[in-house]
């Protein structure tokens, strides 16, 4: 434990800065969308309370189904609902959605391009419950499924915008969920578009390509590094699939050193996508990868673990300062 920390093991703390936060941005957005979209239905596998979907249940009890602890059935039932024209949002933890229900996401959803949205809690290191609960490799697993859209939002603003966007999208979606009290990083006018990356800071000494909550750390790191005379650009890539290879290649071409930052193992996720993209584009530059190691993470308080495994602003600053 860090000195002064009194968080219990497993207590969430995705927040790394002193920002304002919003409670349950996903559930609030979904309940709002339920009014204008009568085809939206909600499902969970005994994790409604812990995936922020209860505002939707309370607003539309006849359109909400809790299937119990049965993730294969969660996805199968969602597929059946989609076949009758519904737009199901199904929530569970990322570990259970991806590891337990993989065949169902691949065959029942993606193979038929059904309009199901899997909303997956506890992405990467946002819980201290260890390997059973930390979805550290979910992006890699989901990336292999043809036609599946994958989103890793950064903050409360983006979660609400992405929830609105995927409600209208044709085809299956896997979205990582930041739950509970979620920080606000982006201004209310922030525009989210599926499949599009956004340049948030210019560069050109270093270019940070980030996804999920690591973009918050990247922005704070870039601001701190500027005071040290290092100009760090930030490209936020909230959609992992389809990947905005064009924006990544353009950004990478204009910066000196490239750093990727993700709340995920450094194999199979954002870092791999960036390296593939640069190779395809013929850009020969060194890529430094910030993310989790290819191993299971122990139990502990989230801030302790995020600090230990380099998912903090300080760690991003230190990594980049060491490059120059």
């Amino acid at each position, binding site marked *: 434990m860090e000195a002064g920390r009194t968080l219990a093991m497993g207590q969430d703390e995705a927040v790394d800065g002193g920002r304002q936060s919003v409670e349950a941005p996903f559930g609030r957005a979904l309940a709002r969308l339920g009014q204008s979209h009568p085809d939206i*239905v909600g499902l969970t596998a005994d994790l409604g309370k812990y995936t922020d979907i209860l505002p939707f249940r309370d607003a539309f009890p*006849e*359109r909400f*189904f809790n*299937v*119990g602890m*049965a993730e*294969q*059935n969660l*996805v*199968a*039932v*969602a*597929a*059946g*609902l*989609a*076949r*009758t*024209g*519904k737009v*199901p949002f199904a929530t569970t933890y990322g570990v259970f959605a991806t590891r337990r229900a993989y*065949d*169902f996401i691949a*065959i*029942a959803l993606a*193979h*038929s391009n059904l309009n199901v949205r899997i909303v997956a809690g506890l992405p990467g290191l946002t819980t201290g419950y260890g390997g059973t609960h930390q979805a550290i490799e979910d992006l890699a697993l989901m990336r292999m499924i043809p036609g599946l859209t994958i989103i890793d939002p950064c903050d409360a603003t983006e979660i609400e915008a992405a929830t609105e966007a995927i409600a209208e999208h044709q085809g299956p979606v896997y979205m990582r969920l930041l739950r509970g009290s979620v920080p606000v990083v982006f201004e209310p006018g922030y525009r989210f578009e599926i499949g599009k990356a956004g340049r948030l800071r210019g560069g050109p000494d270093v270019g940070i390509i980030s996804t999920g909550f690591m973009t918050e750390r990247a922005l704070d790191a870039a601001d701190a590094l500027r005071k040290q005379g290092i100009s760090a650009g930030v490209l936020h890539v909230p959609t992992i699939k389809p990947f905005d290879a064009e924006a990544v290649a353009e950004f990478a071409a204009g910066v000196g050193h490239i750093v990727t930052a993700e709340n995920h193992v450094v194999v199979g996720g954002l870092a791999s996508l960036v390296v593939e993209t640069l190779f395809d584009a013929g850009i020969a530059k060194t890529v430094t990868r910030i993310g989790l190691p290819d191993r299971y993470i122990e139990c502990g308080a989230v801030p302790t673990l995020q600090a230990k495994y380099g998912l903090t602003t300080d760690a991003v600053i230190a990594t980049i300062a060491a490059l120059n």
Partner: protein
Amino acid sequence: MPRNSPPGTADIGALERKATQLRRHMLTMARGQGQGYIGQGLGIADALAALYFHELRYDPHNLAWPDRDRFLLSTGHYSIALWAALTEAGIIPVEELVTYGADNSRLEMSTLDTTPGVEMIGGSLGHGLGQGVGQALGLRVDRSDARVFVELSDGEMQEGSTWEAAMSASHFKLDGLVALIDCNGIQADGPVVLDMEPVAGKWRAFGWETFEIDGNDMTAVVGALASARQRNGKPKAIVLRTLPGKGVPRIESSEKSHFFRIDVAQWGGIIAEFEKSAGAGP
């Protein structure tokens, strides 16, 4: 023709002749490539004849009709039986039967949902019942009285997802959901490798109103389907005891009934055996 026949007016003789015609189509298909899941298809032919030509409400000219009854074939490798039923229903042209299992054919040996009349991708066993639960819930949200029929098999009951779905169907009181469990006693490695008995007892324990019948007795099949129409708050399970290869004695008695490859030279004899058996029957 939305409802094929009003409830209670089944012409058993006519349905038996339909089942014979479905078997004839299946033999035409299997002969094309000299192989296929003919044992399973012949075994389930009576149930499919009763469904498609008596029980199901559907319109062959409007397959996307929202209020149609759904038939989900969870065991995708039973496709040979589904193609036969869809052909006899006028949805697939009879000339296409010989393409079964050939390159570029719509009549795959394991179903994809790109062929008209297919409601789900079968083949990864344990997928069908949960999708049937979802369709039944969707129909309930829409206040439709359409029903959902899901075929699954005895071997498939070994997939845990089947029981996840079974639990949820009774929890949600899906009384318009009917599971047809084909118990033919075979699976990929031979005779059923994990004892599933008592099959009916398991479904009853999971809260399903359960009927157990001879799945090759048309009167019994039609009767069980009629009983399953009740909207009494419970999902329905019909345990069909079937004989794989039914109608072709040399397939019925084969130990290799899971998947058949038969020499070109033998097909004449098989067809003759079937026609002789069919002629002696109903």
